[in-house]
């Protein structure tokens, strides 16, 4: 008898309840890209402070039985926060939004000048349960909305073209992809971070270089070459090609792997050393019977030239970083992890110390292969 009661109570419980979270999959809108801009006309107002843009795919245009042409939709509104915008859009779209597949967040450059706003937006994203923390963050030179608009009628991957371009920088060091997690933890550790920059060029988007953000505020643009060098110094050497002039010829050298060692120590002031080991192969030389690359001496000379070039670029970039006082290269981070006692002493005055650090940069280039010909 007791078992019957138990069974009946279970069944009635299940049948009486509704299915609270059920929502058909084709009746959801999957936001893939979000863009935020500062609403300049409403400065100071809390409710209208942002212009938020959502981009979501048109389900009818995906797959073999695609019935429509337009691949994505774009909507935009004035709102106080990202998720508030979702509620405000609800009157205009047939279905509720679903945020678990958001891939890209584009922040307009004007927004980055407001530190408080950036902090609040970051907290909103960090706290939220609905989004993935692997969102890629990009900074738009100009307005995020314009960039998304340009992107809007292009051919799409299912993941989104911007996302596919930005997520994996294994084949290029022109920009440093940043996920939300890395973004936030960079601020925790060293107060500075670098985020890829996305610009509009001839009506199409281009991800080039980056933007240095310090203390939740915009600091400086960084172009592609500088970004490359910063990547080297951070130990993220990817497949990159370097052009160097050697004996009036342009050598093209492709990097396969790299290894960076950093060290920082206190000795009459803070000194830091960066040692980069690069391995790669010769991509292009010149078709001339008198000039062969198959000679060890020639290779060594080439290596020297490349080393000099890279070292010069690195020193130039370091100077620039010290000038703008942005510790992107992780010297502070390194000290806090590996020399914690020293770091505790100088932690508070890091902003004053960083520009004065003496850097010792060494580059070691190895041309391992010359390709198929001599």
């Amino acid at each position, binding site marked *: 008898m007791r078992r019957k009661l138990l069974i009946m109570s279970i069944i009635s419980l299940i049948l009486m309840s509704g299915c609270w979270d059920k929502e058909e999959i084709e009746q959801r809108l999957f936001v893939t890209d979000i863009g935020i801009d500062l609403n300049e006309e409403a400065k100071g107002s809390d409710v209208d402070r942002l212009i938020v843009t959502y981009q979501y795919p048109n389900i009818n245009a995906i797959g073999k039985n695609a019935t429509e042409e337009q691949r994505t939709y774009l909507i935009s509104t004035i709102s106080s926060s990202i998720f508030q915008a979702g509620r405000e859009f609800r009157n205009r779209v047939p279905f509720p939004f679903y945020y678990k597949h958001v891939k890209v967040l584009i922040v307009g450059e004007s927004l980055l000048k407001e530190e408080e706003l950036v902090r609040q937006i970051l907290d909103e994203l960090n706290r939220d349960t609905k989004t*993935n923390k692997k969102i890629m963050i990009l900074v738009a030179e100009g307005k995020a909305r314009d960039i998304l608009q340009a992107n809007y009628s292009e051919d799409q991957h299912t993941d989104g073209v911007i996302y596919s371009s930005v997520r994996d920088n294994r084949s290029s060091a022109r920009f440093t992809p940043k996920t939300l997690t890395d973004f936030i*933890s960079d601020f925790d*550790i060293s107060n500075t971070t670098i985020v890829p920059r996305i610009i509009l060029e001839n009506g199409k988007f281009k991800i080039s270089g980056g933007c240095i953000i310090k203390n939740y505020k915009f600091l400086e643009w960084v172009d592609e070459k500088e970004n490359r060098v910063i990547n080297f110094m951070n130990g993220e050497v990817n497949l990159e090609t370097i052009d160097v002039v050697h004996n009036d010829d342009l050598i093209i050298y492709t990097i396969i792997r790299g290894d960076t060692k950093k060290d920082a120590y206190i000795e009459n002031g803070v000194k830091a050393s960066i040692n980069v080991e690069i391995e790669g192969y010769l991509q292009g030389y010149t078709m001339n019977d008198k000039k062969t690359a198959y000679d060890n001496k020639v290779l060594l000379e080439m290596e020297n030239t490349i080393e000099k070039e890279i070292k010069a670029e690195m020193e130039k970039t370091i100077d620039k970083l010290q000038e703008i006082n942005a510790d992107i290269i992780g010297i502070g981070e390194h000290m806090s992890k590996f020399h914690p006692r020293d770091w505790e002493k100088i932690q508070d005055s890091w902003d004053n110390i960083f520009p004065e650090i003496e850097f010792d940069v060494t580059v070691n280039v190895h041309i391992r292969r010359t390709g198929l010909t001599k």
Partner: protein
Amino acid sequence: MQRNTISNQHIKALLVTTIIGVGMLSLPSELAMILENDGWIAIILAGLMLIPFLIIIDKLFSMFPNKSIFEIGREVMGPTIFGIILIIQAIYTIIVLAYTVRIFGEVIKVYILETTPIEVIIITMLLATAYLSRSKIEVLGRMAVMIYPIIIGLVVFLLAVTLPDMDYTNIFPIFNADYKQLPRGIMTAVFSYTGYEIIFLCYNYSDDNKNTLKYVLRGLIVVTCVYLIVFFTSLSSFGIYQLKREIWPSVAVVKEVNLPGYFLENLDGIMLAIWVIAIYASLTSIFYIGGAVLSNISKTKTHELFILPLIPIIYTVALLPDNLVQTNEIMARIISYAAIIARVILPIIIFISAIIRKRRSRA
């Protein structure tokens, strides 16, 4: 085939699956808040601390072969005092169950089912738990052995998917923590070892009493290793600052995994699904303890009668706190202190009383 004995393998599996439950999710974050990068020291120390207690229990049971803990307790301490101890134990069990099921409901609500009322989640889980708790200990042992490889598999899975994205340097700086906080840290870690009381109830049913201690110690080492792996993966993936901010870092770590080249995205669903199984195993064991204790206080033959009536009590207690913060502050604190009484002081008292009694009877 035989009645009333379970093999040592079952005991070890019971120990591991009961302990690995709700504590696993928030452990890295709590420890990071207290001890920064050195939280793992607290985990190891908490594990080591339990070893002498296991040895005490082993000695206790070998002094009274083939007697259950209830019989030993009654004999050694007198029925009235032992009755009081049992009542404390029963209340402790109810609070632990309420806490576990409440946290479980909260996690499920946050990650999987947002709008489903937490009452439904709690009730369905309790009913499912009741189905198994009404059986004998050997059935629970069998269930534990079936679940044991799944839990280990989960931890290995966790390790495997986060390995490509981990940043080992996040573990540094080590040995830099404030050692005055160590006792607090150990208390927090010990809280995650809740559930090892199941040992009390199944030790004497082992079919090979000589080797039980070996198996049980192995189980404890497994639990410690699991917690260490969880701690290190969370720390490496997040870095110390974000780790302190996350409430449930273990799940967030899996959410982080994004290897589109290998088609692995959004894996938190799998992790949570298997975690439901782990929680179920913890809940059934502790529920069984509650039922057994109550049945012993009221001198009934089987513990089955008490399982169903306990459900409304646990349900009410679980819904008492208003939100997650209250749950952690009030209940977790009660459990931490009660844990010390129930798990540390009690075995010692019983043991000492047993020695005294033996000496008296010898003299």
